[in-house]
């Protein structure tokens, strides 16, 4: 028998539960031989598939490196963590859960800022008025830079955010944020508003294919069966 297809699945949290449910609907059951703490598992209902349990961001990295064949992870992580991601990873199927938007949000009190064009205006005069460049708190460097560049905004600085990004404007460590949101309630609670054209990406969990993994006929067939069954269960 040839080497098995390696499927990377989220190891914890809501994403893990939803993934397991989706696999169940598609007719597969996850088996974790060593109990919940094992990092390897199997799928019943399909041959030749081995499961690796990883964190969602590790899954994006492993896909990029081609060390796993398929993986379930958020589109935001694929686009953020993998340079030139189209060359390395193919998003095969949105799974209908893990929805989160990556958005540009400014303080609610910026009543004169509705759109990215307004932000451009504010950024252009910020250095003169405040004495430093506009600061954006985010974990999404790549997405932020590409999005701001597409709007022609160059006059800003990104400050790294490792914790509660949405608190940065009130704390004075940044002027605005780029972050993920599902319902917007956390943003509202922090008196932040999303710009009208400030949605960078509408992300959800995807089943993604590693372009550079070692593919042969057996793994290709297994991938098609898995994706087909999941696709049938999603729609």
């Amino acid at each position: 028998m040839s080497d098995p297809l390696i499927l990377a699945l989220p190891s914890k949290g809501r994403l893990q539960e939803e993934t397991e449910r989706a696999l169940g609907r598609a007719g597969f059951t996850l088996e974790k031989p060593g109990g919940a703490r094992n990092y390897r598992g199997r799928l019943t209902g399909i041959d030749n598939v081995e499961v690796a349990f990883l964190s969602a961001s590790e899954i994006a990295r492993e896909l990029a490196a081609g060390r796993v064949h398929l993986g379930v992870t958020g589109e935001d992580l694929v686009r953020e963590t993998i340079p030139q991601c189209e060359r390395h990873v193919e998003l095969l199927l949105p799974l209908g859960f893990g929805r989160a938007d990556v958005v540009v949000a400014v303080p609610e009190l910026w009543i004169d800022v509705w759109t990215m064009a307004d932000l451009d205006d504010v950024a252009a005069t910020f250095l003169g008025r405040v004495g430093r460049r506009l600061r954006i708190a985010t974990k999404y460097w790549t997405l932020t830079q590409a999005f701001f560049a597409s709007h022609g905004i160059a006059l800003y600085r990104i400050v790294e955010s490792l914790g509660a990004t949405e608190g940065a404007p009130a704390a004075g460590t940044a002027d605005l944020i780029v972050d993920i949101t599902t319902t917007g309630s956390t943003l509202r609670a922090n008196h932040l508003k999303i710009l009208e054209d400030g949605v960078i990406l509408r992300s959800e969990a995807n089943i993604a294919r590693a372009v550079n993994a070692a593919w042969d006929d057996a793994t290709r067939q297994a991938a098609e069966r898995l994706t087909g069954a999941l696709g049938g269960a999603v729609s």
Partner: protein
Amino acid sequence: MSAAQPTSGSGGLLRDLFEAAGATWLSLPVLQPADPFLETAGEDIRRRMFVTEGVSGERLALRPDFTIPVCLHHLGEENGPRKYAYEGAVFRRAESGVSEVLETGYEDIGRTDKVEADADAIALAVEAVGRLSGGAITVRLGDIGLFTALLSALDLPPAWRRRLRLSFGVAELMRANLDRLAAPRTDDPMAGFDAELAAVAGKHDEAALARFLEARAEAHGHVPDAGRTAADIARRFLEQLSLRETHLDQPTLAILRDYLAIEAPLGDASETLGAFFAGHGLSLDPALETFTVRADQIVARDRLSPGETGIGFSAAFGRPLDYYTGLVFEIGLAGEARPAAGGGRYDGLMQMLGTDVPVPAIGFTVRLPGGGGAS
């Protein structure tokens, strides 16, 4: 950071040429303080810089550009005009290809006879490129100063002028911004306002609105004095309300689009531009006058035979660096996609780096053969 020392000895493919033009040869450290680039060069450079840390945590960069280090060196010198030249590698992350590019260049800082300085720089750049390669040379010339003067002559609101000026040289962005300014905004400016805020905002009383926003910032738990002020927000809000009632009218839009489409040999450009402005009842002096005198000088000093070279003016032509203020140019070689040299006037940069008043300056860099690089 140790100061640069004028050096003698080896190195410098074009050193004799630049020194004959009066330049002091500089040897500048590869590692430079990162902040001046971050503050003045714009996001394109920032994104492509290699940044590292010194022993005491200071941010350092592999120099992504020579102009800023030369200006910083000039800041540390005695006052007065100086010319500098240099050669070395610059480092910018490339998506593909090599991130290290070998460049040589020339900066002429502090000269008040700007027209002569511009003509000198172009003549020198053409000669520099000619020495390095034998082929036919073309010069493409643009002028963000003339565009700025046109925006003033058209009496556009300051916010629009700023936006169009920032789009200069980036065709797609310019098109998008012109389209946006031509279309009236239809969304409700007070959407999402609560009743209390809407009541204050509707009064068009800047001071009252600022006070209200200030109190609210406190109630929201914002750290005071950390960023934009309530007064600034209130002022811009009311300015935007009045701007919404107007939009860029069709005739003005047509003038801007037609202007940006102007291309002419530099020898004919003044006449073409003069006719264009006069035809629309616009007076662009003294900017056009300066342009004309300078164009005459550049053409008069063009030592290459007419068949061999072409100096073309392109009204929309700009270079994607924040600090240019006037003439910008690129020199191309027949059969090569990438420009062999590029430069421009940056009268605002020295002030951004710390002088009290603007210092006129112009410079250019020449890509050296085999130096690699992506752009």
